[in-house]
């Protein structure tokens, strides 16, 4: 050990984390609730149904039981869904398939013990954050890619219709954009659309 690092931000925020527990009140349910309260999270327990998540839910811990397989939870799998940690009792293929559907980053085995839950929560939150960040990055890349493609097409049209070089075509697009106080890709897409309209 060289130097202690600063405490990770996710660990610091655990005491304000709102956790929804979707689990029957059996021994596992009691163990889960007690350990989440020791960790200091804000916990609410539901079972068996939960049609909408309470506002501000940051994590869902849910029992994977045969009886939950037929249920639908409308708040799962949307762009605003929080991470889900399944509590796995059966390890048969049907249940494992259901676990895969949740896109979980980690699972908690039954019987539930107090040790292991804290690590599972932090791993789930950290991976969720990484994954959300990566999705946003991919979105931005795709948008950028689409913009570049439009500008490229527009340049091509200008080069062909005006008989200019690629560099000159780009300068024409740029000065048009400045003149109209528009983004260069807006001008480009108008040109591409106009060409499409002309070439029906």
């Amino acid at each position, binding site marked *: *050990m*060289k*130097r202690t690092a*600063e*405490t990770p931000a996710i660990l610091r925020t655990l005491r304000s984390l709102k956790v929804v527990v979707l689990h029957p009140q059996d021994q596992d349910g009691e163990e889960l609730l007690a350990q989440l309260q*020791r960790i*200091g999270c804000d916990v609410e327990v539901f079972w068996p149904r939960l049609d909408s998540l309470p506002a501000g839910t940051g994590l869902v811990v849910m029992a994977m039981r045969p009886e939950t397989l037929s249920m639908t939870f409308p708040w799962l799998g949307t762009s605003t869904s929080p991470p889900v940690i399944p509590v796995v009792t059966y390890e048969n293929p049907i249940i494992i398939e259901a676990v895969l559907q949740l896109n979980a980053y980690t699972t908690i085995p039954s019987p539930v*013990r107090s040790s292991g839950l*804290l690590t599972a929560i932090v791993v789930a939150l950290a991976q969720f954050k990484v994954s959300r960040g990566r999705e946003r990055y991919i979105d931005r890349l795709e948008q950028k890619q689409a913009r570049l493609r439009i500008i490229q097409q527009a340049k091509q049209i200008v080069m062909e219709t005006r008989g200019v070089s690629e560099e000159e075509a780009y300068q024409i697009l740029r000065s048009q954009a400045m003149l109209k106080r528009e983004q260069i890709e807006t001008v480009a897409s108008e040109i591409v659309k106009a060409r499409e309209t002309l070439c029906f």
Partner: protein
Amino acid sequence: MTRHDSDHTSEPIRIGVLYSRSGVTAAVERTQLQATILAVEEINRAGGVSGREIELVCLDPQCKPRCYAQLAEELIVEHRVRIIVGCYMSSSRKAVIPIVERHNALLFYATPYEGFEHSRNVIYTGAAPNQNTLPLAGFMLTQFGSRVSMIGSDYVCPYESNRVMSDLILERGGAKANEIYLSLDAPWESYLDAAQRIKECAPDFIFSTVVGEGIPHLYRAFAHVGLDPYRVPIASHMTSEAEIAVMGNDVAEGHITCATYFQSIDTPANLGAVARYQARFGEDQPTNMCWEAAWFQMHLLADAIRRVGSDDPALLQRVLPGLEFDAPQGRVRIDEHNNHTYLHPLIGRVDTRGRFDVIGRAPERVKADPYVVSHTTPAWTADAHPELARSGDAQ
């Protein structure tokens, strides 16, 4: 009651003991062993529990985590023990937990540790960080400043304490002057070198998480390089009367410890326990925080056995949460939800006789919060007798 029943119920209750008599932390573990023996002798002299004597099965794990695990298994399987008291360093406790959980036995653990643990099969009677590191940090950062040198033994408990301290230092805009870790068996020369490096950094105080045989080395090295404890003290939550007895009062004087017990406490419970201990084990035997927890946990355990009339861990787990006892430090209570203990944090400064002058105390017992990540220092540490903290300036 049939004759058979009375035979059966008068059999002694056997309790396993895992304290090391050799190895790096043997000095303090020996005091925990003797505290356990004292408590059991007191319980038996008063008639035992429900008419049964307590019989200790003491094995020596020699400060080796692997031995703790093997001997815990041996106690449960061969000696038919359902309750074990013992372990000191976290590595030993972590080695024993899987075994007590597998056999549904109970471990009573009487040593301060780094928190972030809960097992249904462990009762924690030593301090969690919010009961020692936190008050110590609050007191030192307020009274001495926030440029801090850290020195610790190279294992998990010191890292975790230093994480807490580092966060608090940074929050106050302070700085870590240095952060040094030495192996548990590091020689005197390593401590001398570390003391020299710390002296050159001129910090406001030193936060020590050194344990075991390294503690006397550390304090001697500080005296050797000429650091004045009344200007730049070592602050620790592990240095106790046990280590002061080894290093010598002259070397220890002026340094600061936060603990939930000091021998110098003048409660009737403490005066009585210390007198009986010294009558039994020698007038020169000092007591310490780990001794006290080892002593009171045995009385708490006896009370729990009395209540359920059995040493069955499943039954004991029902009555232990919420149980209270008038310990030498004051009234303690096992928390209903986390198996840790409400304790009374104190800040003490070593006097010329090697005893702790209490220069700060929590206004009431403090609930253990083993899973707290972001700490705030308790208010009482900010106004805990600054004139006493600085008393050396006048000398």
